[in-house]
């Protein structure tokens, strides 16, 4: 306190003295003096020095300095800062610095300062400004050399960088090119000699060093200035740092540099490893690339514990890592050397090796790797050994005559750190021994004349080992029933099957493997004699019914009925059943297995595989069944070759007898599909289903589910129509698309045209005859003397009608007889039941005789109107006279589809064709019942007064039945005939028609 009072007094005294000197105390100022400005260009830092009066220093005043920094000659203030300091009696010069973002060379920088005493005892007034103190930029020089700044600057990625281009005297900047492609141009307002531009958030380039290039025009010899900007990253922290010793002499530390800094050469990351206990740097490793690990080694000496600092440094910063290393805990031995094998045996070897370091023994634990030929690896650990010893290890449990590969590695037994690398591998083969295990033997028995051919197949059981190089197979067989000399053959190792022949006795076949040492235990199979069950199956098992089994992509599933009767089961098959060398396979199963999934890489879709199942009992095998199946059924490759074997107007029969359904097919043939393509768009055939093709065509499809049925009749077809037929077989894999059709045209329906043909033929014939012989006919049939007995027609034709052919009036007992003369009593009847008959009727009696039915229903012959009844007439005439126009009309209606018939004038043909079945049948019945009845009334006679039975009538045999049809016809009967009737009765008429047609042709 006293001290402060003393100071105050002293200050006032000084001030009074100053007042005395002429200065006003309240305007007292400490003007900054000796202002000096300089540049630190590497740091781009402006250094400022100044002073104030000694008085201020003496009083150690707390002062504030207002510092202004301006750029360019126009004194644009770019920075203002208040600098607080307490003055010191010792250090009179004051310092202040300012880091410029713009390179200081780019333009002139000026600084001025004013001060203020920051003390309550003084009024807080700023002093006057000092004069501007300037450091000139290169833009003011008279030099003609162009510049660009900053030069080769290294910046961190993402920062902003300000460049300036300075042209020489009287030059101007044309443009600025950054990173090859980005052009910038100077503002027109600024000096053309100087261009300042800031690049924001710069990124690293693919090639280090981004060029910054200024185009300059001027007097100078060089019209450009350029530099590189190196953009990178600070060093990352070293990764995977570890140190160890391999020989207890030197320690090596290794680490990875981490991610790329994009800075190379002199700007790349530098490392140094510093030991803090000894305060010594250990090494300064060089880095080639950031991808390769960096190593640093030094001699251990006596120091075993190190306190290490690893520093990574580049122009953008540094990173350090600290760690303590105990060398004894970081021993990484060298790999063992001189690995060798001694005392080789069949199942045992002894391994010897040496280790390092020799000079400084450490305890090591070693590991031996034993690699089997199969690739299996076994690891064996040794006991702890000294590194300067020559240890060995005996390995047992090896397989005889087997190649083994041994190698080993070691690690520190105490404070294990890391295994050494593996030693060199040595390969050895153990010694030979007797074969172990047995052979798996199977057979296929084929009957031959007088015995069997037994083909033996063998393969090693999993536990079988040859244990030697030179191996052969010994086969011995002998009869079971009676003692005989065993037969023996030896087979080389390269074979796995052989065939022996035996007679019809039962045989025991033994097989063993033999090597250079001795033989293995034999495998035995028994082939029983033909009468035994075991051999019987060999004869005919192919004829046994095959059971179909299903297959999948995973294999074919086989099952059988397991019983206690067998010790095991065997399934055999061929991998390539279609090949001569079918690659015979078999598989054994234990007694409680009843199914298996057989699979093989050789199995192919569309191939039928056959599996035989055997039960095994005491070396004897019994056939149990045969299974066939596919892994996958395919559609048949071959199409049935269909043939049209029968055809009618409405049916077509197609056959494909030669189509195979055996194992050659890629699937089980399940049946067939018959496809019929009609001209119609839709399938309308009865009994078929629709089948649409991909192109929209609709086919009729018939399915035949029995593969043995190779014939099919397609029915309900239309006559004279074209059809396309195809037959496809289908399997579980479906069927192939239809690729070909058989085109067939159904026959025409002759029934439709037959009546027309008949009418036309008859008409033509009769007309021709009539016109040709009209005079003769007239003479013959209508003689002038109406005596039928003198008729030439009856005599010249050779036709002799017996007396019964002419009705005698005396035979009829009429109740009324009307006699009437007629000139047309002669008739000629030519047709009767399809046979051309030429006859002559002699009707002497011109009168009509009526048969009428009396009240009791009996027929009576009665006299009536001439049109009412006739029993004997020439139809050629009666058709015109008796039937009248109504007959024409009805016939025309019934045959209206054939209009030409309507003009027919000769009608008896219709009489032949039209009769109804019923009518004919009844007539036949009557005829048969009353075999002698020859003349039947054509019409019902409503008034019958004479019983027919009572009438005298002919009892002659039915020799003139041709008349019957003609006589039963009447106008009513014809009227009731329709088209349908014609069709339905074709059985009775067609034959007649056919005969007529044939005759007509002749």
């Amino acid at each position, binding site marked *: 306190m006293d001290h402060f009072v003393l100071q105050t007094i002293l200050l006032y005294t000084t001030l009074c003295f100053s007042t005395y000197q002429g200065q006003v105390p309240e305007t007292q100022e400490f003007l900054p003096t000796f202002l000096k400005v300089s540049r630190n260009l590497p740091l781009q830092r402006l250094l400022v020095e100044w002073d104030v009066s000694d008085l201020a220093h003496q009083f150690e005043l707390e002062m504030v300095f207002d510092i202004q920094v301006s750029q360019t000659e126009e004194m644009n203030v770019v920075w203002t800062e208040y600098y607080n300091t307490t003055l010191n009696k010792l250090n009179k010069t004051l310092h202040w610095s300012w880091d410029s973002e713009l390179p200081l060379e780019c333009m002139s920088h000026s600084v001025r300062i004013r001060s203020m005493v920051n003390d309550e005892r003084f009024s807080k007034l700023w002093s006057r400004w000092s004069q501007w103190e300037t450091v000139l930029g290169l833009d003011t020089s008279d030099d003609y050399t162009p510049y660009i700044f900053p*030069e*080769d600057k290294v910046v961190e990625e993402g920062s902003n960088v300000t460049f300036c281009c300075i042209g020489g005297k009287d030059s101007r900047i044309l443009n600025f*090119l950054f990173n*090859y*492609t980005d052009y910038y141009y100077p503002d027109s307002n600024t000096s053309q000699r100087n261009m300042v531009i800031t690049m924001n958030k710069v990124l690293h380039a*693919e*090639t*280090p*060093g981004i*060029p910054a*290039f200024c*185009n300059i025009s001027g007097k100078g010899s060089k019209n*450009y200035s*350029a*530099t*590189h900007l*190196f953009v990178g990253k600070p060093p990352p922290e070293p990764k995977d740092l570890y140190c160890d010793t391999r020989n207890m002499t030197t320690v090596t530390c290794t680490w990875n540099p981490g991610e790329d800094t994009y800075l*190379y*050469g*002199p*700007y790349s990351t530098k490392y140094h490893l510093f030991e803090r206990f000894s305060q010594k740097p250990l090494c300064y490793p060089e880095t*080639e*690339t950031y991808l390769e690990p960096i190593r640093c080694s030094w001699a251990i000496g006596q120091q075993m514990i190190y306190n290490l600092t690893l520093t990574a440094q580049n122009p953008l910063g540094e990173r350090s890592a600290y760690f303590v290393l105990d060398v004894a805990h970081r021993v990484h031995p060298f790999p063992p050397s001189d690995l060798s094998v001694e005392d080789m045996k069949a199942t045992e070897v002894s391994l010897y090796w040496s280790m390092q370091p020799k000079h400084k023994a450490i305890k090591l634990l070693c590991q031996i790797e034993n690699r089997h030929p199969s690739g299996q690896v076994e690891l064996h650990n040794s006991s702890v050994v000294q590194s300067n010893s020559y240890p060995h290890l005996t390995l047992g449990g090896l397989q005889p005559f087997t190649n083994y590969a041994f190698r080993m590695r070691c690690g520190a037994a105490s404070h294990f750190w890391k295994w050494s690398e593996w030693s060199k591998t040595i390969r050895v083969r153990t010694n030979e021994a007797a074969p172990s295990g047995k052979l798996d033997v199977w057979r296929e028995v084929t009957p031959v004349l007088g015995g069997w051919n037994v083909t033996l197949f063998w393969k090693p059981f999993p536990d079988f080992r040859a244990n030697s190089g030179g191996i052969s197979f010994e086969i011995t067989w002998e009869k079971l029933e009676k003692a005989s000399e065993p037969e023996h053959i030896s087979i080389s190792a390269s074979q796995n099957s052989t065939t022996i022949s035996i007679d019809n006795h039962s045989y025991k076949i033994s097989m063993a493997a033999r090597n250079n040492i001795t033989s293995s235990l034999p495998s035995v199979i028994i082939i029983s004699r033909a009468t035994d069950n075991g051999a019987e199956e060999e004869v005919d098992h192919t004829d046994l019914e095959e059971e179909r089994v299903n297959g999948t992509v995973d294999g074919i599933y086989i099952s059988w009925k397991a019983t206690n009767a067998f010790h095991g089961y065997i399934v055999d098959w061929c991998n390539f059943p279609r090949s001569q060398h079918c690659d015979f396979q078999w598989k054994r199963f234990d007694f409680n297995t009843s199914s298996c999934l057989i699979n093989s890489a050789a199995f192919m879709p569309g191939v039928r595989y056959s599996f035989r199942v055997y039960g095994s009992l005491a070396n004897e095998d019994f056939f149990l069944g045969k299974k066939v199946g596919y892994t996958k059924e395919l559609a048949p490759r071959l199409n049935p070759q269909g043939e049209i074997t029968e055809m009618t107007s409405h049916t077509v029969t197609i056959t494909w007898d030669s189509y195979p359904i055996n194992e050659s097919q890629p699937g089980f043939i399940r049946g067939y599909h018959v496809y019929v393509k009609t001209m119609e768009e839709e399938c309308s055939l009865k009994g078929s289903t629709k089948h649409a093709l991909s192109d929209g065509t609709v086919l009729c499809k018939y399915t035949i589910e029995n593969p043995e049925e190779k014939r099919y009749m397609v029915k309900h077809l239309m006559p004279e129509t074209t059809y396309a037929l195809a037959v496809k077989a289908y399997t579980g894999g479906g069927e192939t698309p239809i690729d070909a059709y058989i085109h067939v045209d159904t026959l025409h329906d002759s029934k439709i045209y037959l009546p027309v043909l008949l009418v036309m033929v008859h008409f033509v014939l009769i007309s021709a005859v009539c016109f040709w012989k009209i005079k003769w006919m007239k003479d013959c049939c209508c003689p002038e003397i109406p005596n039928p007995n003198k008729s030439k027609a009856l005599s010249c034709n050779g036709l002799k009608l017996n007396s019964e052919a002419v009705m005698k009036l005396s035979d009829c007992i009429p109740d009324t007889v009307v006699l009437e003369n007629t000139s047309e009593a002669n008739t000629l009847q030519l047709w009767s039941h399809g046979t051309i008959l030429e006859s002559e009727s002699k009707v002497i009696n011109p009168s009509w005789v009526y048969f009428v039915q009396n009240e009791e229903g009996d027929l009576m012959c009665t006299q009536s109107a001439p049109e009412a009844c006739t029993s004997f007439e020439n139809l050629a005439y009666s058709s015109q006279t008796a039937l009248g126009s109504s007959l024409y009309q009805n016939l025309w209606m019934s045959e209206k589809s054939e209009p030409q018939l309507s003009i027919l004038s000769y009608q008896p043909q219709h009489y032949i064709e039209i009769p109804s079945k019923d009518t004919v049948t009844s007539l036949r019945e009557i005829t048969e019942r009353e075999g002698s009845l020859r003349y039947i009334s054509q019409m019902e006679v409503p008034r019958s007064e004479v019983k027919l039975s009572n009438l005298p009538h002919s009892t002659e045999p039915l020799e003139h039945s041709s008349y019957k049809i003609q006589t039963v016809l009447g106008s009513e009967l014809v009227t009731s005939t329709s088209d349908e009737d014609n069709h339905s009765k074709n059985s009775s008429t067609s034959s007649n028609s056919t005969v007529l047609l044939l005759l007509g042709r002749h």
Partner: protein
Amino acid sequence: MGVVIAHGDVSRALTQGLFIQCLAHVNSSTAPCRGCHLNSLGKITAKARQMEKEAKELFRSYLTHQGLLTSELRQLCDEAIQWFPTENIRDQPKIVMLQELYRTLVHMNDALENIRKQQQVLSTPGAALHGKLESTQWAVKGLLSNTVCTLCLEGVLPNSRRTPERPAATNTFQQKIDGCKVLGNYSKFLKKLARGSGKKAPQALRDQRKRRKGTKRKEGSSRS
């Protein structure tokens, strides 16, 4: 074949040592310079033809890799380098030509060494340009060896003028341009060297051609 020379200044010392050894052999006996092919000039021509393509490829690769394909930057490489001969040295007398070739190759070897150093900062470590520069430098050393041999066979001491001091270190961009200039001039130099004389063939080449013609005639006569 040529003798493999060590890097930089060491290589120069070695080539001179080799030459002295050659001279010693020539002087001490009639045996030719040890290890030198009698037809070393032919070897030089053949080698120059082979190197011409490589030099062209190296120059193109350098321009591409260093981003000097833009017109502003590309034209900077066209400037002539002082230590490359301005005229076709094949037009010079044989000894002069060999001396000029030797001098240029020594410069070139030195320049390539410098370019490779510069590329440590201007290229990524695995860049293909490093390999091409190294390959070219080995080729230059081989040609230098052949030249020394030819001079040796001619009984002439190589010009022992030292390489002029390189200008003070400039910025990396200028180094890049300098390297570009060197490689451009080198390519042109080899083009002239490989294609032979623009005016008249040197005596050695004329002799060589005569020998070849003579051989062909002999072959033709033996065939006939």
